[in-house]
């Protein structure tokens, strides 16, 4: 069964007014259950917009989206997905454990069950010792891990991530990538992952969706075929480099056409 179906989706901001922005045109994408898909492309090509459409934080101007066999709105109401952003967005007045409990609180879980789940999630992201700390007492990488734990707290079938590691240093970033893969493998979660980084996209994904701006559309979908489980050794694998080259070429095509259009515009 496919986790997400996107058919002929368009998104226009401020339609009809002077500052109209065509953010996405004619997006078609089908994501299978358990698949890890990355969205990559230059800034402003509509990656975040596409993610927000799936999350029902925005309504499409045209076309339709199906999430978990339901409308995105129903999926949101059912908390079928968890979300994580570049900024961890933890609430500074809540302890780490209480931050993770937030979505459960809103769902009306009782206190004991909430706490149990929060501790389980903290084990998962290896921060069990920090349950009683406040976010501002943690490093950036740890905060991001808490945010991921929070996104996974309801055991969602789907995880939507918008450049979640974008603010981390390279070392922490690679470490977090491995951990994320481990978590998703264990839980069978479907992931839609927005990133700027080609190696990150290739390392994590089954498929990399390459997008281009003005107007935002999908130019190419690169299949990444790396045998076996991914680990740090994968980063030296020739299939990994092949994937990187393929995505880079797809992106170069994007920049080229963009450049050509730039000249035409003059």
């Amino acid at each position: 069964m496919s986790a997400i179906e996107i058919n002929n989706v368009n998104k226009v901001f401020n339609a009809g007014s002077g500052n109209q922005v065509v953010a996405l045109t004619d997006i078609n994408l089908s994501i299978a259950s358990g698949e890890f898909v990355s969205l990559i492309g230059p800034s402003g090509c509509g990656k975040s917009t596409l993610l927000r459409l799936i999350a029902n934080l925005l309504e499409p101007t045209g076309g339709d989206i199906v999430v978990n066999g339901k409308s995105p709105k129903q999926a949101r109401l059912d908390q079928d997905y968890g979300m994580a952003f570049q900024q961890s967005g933890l609430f500074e007045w809540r302890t780490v454990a209480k931050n993770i409990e937030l979505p459960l609180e809103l769902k009306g879980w009782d206190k004991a069950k909430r706490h149990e789940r929060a501790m389980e999630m903290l084990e998962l992201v290896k921060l069990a010792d920090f349950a009683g700390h406040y976010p501002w007492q943690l490093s950036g990488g740890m905060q991001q891990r808490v945010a991921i734990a929070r996104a996974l707290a309801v055991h969602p079938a789907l995880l939507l991530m918008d450049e979640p590691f974008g603010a981390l240093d390279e070392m922490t970033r690679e470490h977090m990538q491995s951990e994320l893969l481990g978590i998703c493998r264990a839980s069978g979660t479907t992931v839609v992952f927005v990133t700027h980084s080609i190696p990150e996209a290739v390392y994590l994904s089954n498929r990399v969706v390459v997008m281009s701006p003005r107007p935002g559309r999908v130019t190419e979908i690169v299949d990444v075929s790396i045998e076996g489980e991914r680990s740090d050794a994968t980063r030296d694998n020739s299939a990994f480099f092949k994937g990187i080259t393929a995505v880079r070429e797809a992106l170069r095509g994007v920049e080229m056409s963009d450049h050509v259009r730039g000249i035409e515009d003059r």
Partner: protein
Amino acid sequence: MSSTITRPQRTSFLTPRRLRRVALFFASLVLVAVAWELYKVVGPEAGGKIFGWKLLPRANDNAMPHIWEMLERYGRPEVRGSDRKIWSVVLAGAWFSFRLALVGFFVGTALGLGLSILMARFKVAERGILPYLVLSQTVPLIALAPLVVSWGGKLSIGDWTWPRWLSASVLGAFLAFFPVAVGALKGLTSPPSASIELMDSYAASWWQTLRKLRFPAAVPFLVPALKLAASASVIGVVVAEISTGLKGGIGRLIIEYAREATSDPAKVFTAVFGAALLGLAMSGFVTLADLYMMRNRPKEANA
């Protein structure tokens, strides 16, 4: 951000920083007293002029009694022959006004919070209400005080009639609600759109978002607003006492004692210090609330 791990630390109530602050406060009191006495030594007895302007206050014992005379005055009866010492009269007056100010503070805070929630919820309300709030604060309190008293006097619900003291509290509330409304509105609308989106992604209702996100996010904005509200409620109450002649409070004592300034110059100062004590008690109360509300917040901001 570094990867160092700070353990959550239970900081004790009396940190060195707080102790230093308290010491500084008392040191500054002593300094003011010394300056007062010094001026009495060097200042002109009958006042003085600078470039023809009558600026220097008179340094004689009538205009500026010695500090020890003021302190000594506390130990003597309020009026000759009475057995009530003045310190107990002043203290009782300050306590009376403190309770009125506290009522004004709470009523004003509740009103301010209510208005801020209304304005945060409905953009229309913000545009419709905010200008009037600003305008309300330009009405002179002295003009308002008799009005409130006369309105209140006509008010009775069943057996309940408007007590006179309530008018003073209402005027305290009238001054106190404004900083709370403005500060809370700023705080309630402070969360970044990412946090709002997060709550939306959980399908949280507006009230849930208010309780779990907007309100806690508003607390750091509320703290200075409450400090302003506390001193505003004291001012409102004292001015109301003076302008409506309400008996029992420190405001009334100040005008009564001021009438005896020539025969008993130290007396009025005992009441003035009583008013200062009232202000201190009020701000102490709010500071405790501040310490409690901000106990688990990042400390950099006020380090």
